[in-house]
């Protein structure tokens, strides 16, 4: 009898311990969640405050009453945020497309075609992965300037159009497709290019999507190269636009308007993320572990 009550007691303390542990875990996770969410809350909140009411608040208030949409009108009329957004979309789409074409073609050559010096060339490619961008950007800056491609989309896009890492990622995937498929297609008289686009690329869709996701995020956030290569606001991307706004534009004084611009810039990727959440997180995890 005594034994069973003791067992119940042990079970009871174990249950209590578990409950306390769970409470601590949830508290810790909630704390970090608040620290992550808060800046987003603050930027949305501030973007709805009017210029006058923001400056009148010595102690910032947690609600914007009454909310105003003027800041959002402002960022599209007094500064050309719309133009920066269009530029960034053009830059992102073209860079990603060009990168994919180059990566697919060369991954196909490495994975499927037999040619002299293949292994040597592939090793050379891989060794390039170690080179940090900071080391080559100096000469690229000079090259692009000499070619007269400053303040053009070509100058923005070309230097980041080829990436060894993505070629490697695709090549590994292509190489896993059985040879028999290729020979079967050959027997049927299928051209290499058609086989590549109709069989290999669709079979490796997850990898292609991973590459697109990683490159789009990278393009949307890219700041350093666009800053070096553009000084004409007509070719600014969002990162440069927001920096310019902060240092010379109205954002210096008009913080609510600046926050409205930040909201507009952040929204597209966040919406995209919330819609394709699973795919994006899986893609980043894949791209990460293979690096």
């Amino acid at each position, binding site marked *: 009898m005594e034994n069973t009550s003791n067992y119940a007691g042990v079970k009871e303390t174990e249950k209590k311990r578990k409950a306390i542990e*769970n409470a601590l875990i949830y508290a810790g996770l909630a704390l970090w969640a608040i620290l992550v969410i808060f800046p987003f809350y603050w930027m949305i909140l501030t973007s709805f405050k009017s210029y006058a009411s923001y400056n009148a608040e010595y102690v910032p208030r947690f609600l914007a009453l009454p909310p105003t949409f003027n800041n959002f009108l402002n960022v599209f009329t007094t500064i050309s945020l719309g133009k920066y957004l269009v530029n960034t979309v053009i830059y992102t789409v073209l860079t990603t497309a060009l990168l994919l074409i180059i990566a697919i073609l060369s991954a196909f050559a490495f994975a499927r075609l037999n040619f002299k010096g293949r292994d040597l060339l592939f090793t050379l490619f891989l060794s390039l992965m170690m080179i940090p961008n900071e*080391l080559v950007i100096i000469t690229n800056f000079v090259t692009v300037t000499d070619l007269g491609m400053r303040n053009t989309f070509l100058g923005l896009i070309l230097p980041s159009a080829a990436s060894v890492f993505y070629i490697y990622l695709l090549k590994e995937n292509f190489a896993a497709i059985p040879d028999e498929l290729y020979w079967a297609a050959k027997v049927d008289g299928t051209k290499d290019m058609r086989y590549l686009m109709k069989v290999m690329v669709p079979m490796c869709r997850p990898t292609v999507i991973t590459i697109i996701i990683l490159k789009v995020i990278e393009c949307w956030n890219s700041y350093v190269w666009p800053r070096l290569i553009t000084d004409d606001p007509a070719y600014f991307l969002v990162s440069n636009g927001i920096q310019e706004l902060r240092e010379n534009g109205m954002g210096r004084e008009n913080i609510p308007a600046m*926050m409205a611009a930040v909201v507009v810039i*952040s929204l597209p990727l966040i919406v995209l993320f919330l819609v394709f959440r699973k795919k994006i997180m899986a893609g980043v995890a894949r791209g990460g572990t293979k690096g």
Partner: protein
Amino acid sequence: MEDNNKKAWLYLLPAVLFLGVFMVYPLVDVLIYSFEEGFDFASQSYYGTGLYNFSYVLHDPYFLRAVQNTFIIVVITVPLSTFLALMISLGLSRITKLRELFQTIFFLPYVTNTLAVGLVFMILFKKTAYTDGLVNMVIKLFGANAIDFIDGPYWAKMFVMCFYTVWVVLPFKVLLLTSAIASVGDIYYNAARVDGTPPGRMFRRITLPMISPTVFYLVITGFIGAFKAYSDEVAIFGTDLNSAGMNTIVGYVYDMLYGTGGGFPSFASAAAILLFAIIMTITCINLLVSRKHVHY
């Protein structure tokens, strides 16, 4: 496979062309630049070769400041972010309710434009004539004096910098560690449970060894990333990092190349090569250490 030399090179042409022009040639060129003394950008001429550029950079107080800042950022943020990410991932692996919600929230900083969100951090921490800012309001609640985190004392600026860096790098680490922890098979834990192993021991003997490759991968890439810190600094303190006293090595390279103090590709090249040497050394040390401790 049959031989198809010509066809293969045709497929490879774009990649070879782009990598050649924008990676291989610059690699050689940056070395040449770094040894050309007194290079003049306008006339494309120089008056000598030697190590002067390196010596200039190493004696430049701005560069030394940048090195100091970069090392502080590395030493604080890499261990801190890895540890925090480990704690968060372990927490996530223990719960089932709200797990997806937490994971989604934690990943948000990864998909935001860091330059834009940096401005929000600046506003939260900044003290102006109109307002002390939100963070200072909280500090004053605890009875302390308001501090200007953006234009104030060095340690305050460094605090904001490190906080923001951790905030930015954490999503990626949490994501990788969460999937690594999830991939540890239940059989190990069940076997340990049968033996009555306490939870702390289970973590040290099962979880940690099983996820050690991911942890070391994150440490190595974390070091590399932190040494290349730059745009997060610009996001908080603006482009004139030298006058803010918050420049980094990469920032120094770009300032030498372009902008108000720019036009010195030789000095920029020398600084970039020094940075590369530092990163290579640290990475090699990391790899040597990981060989001893990582269980593959």
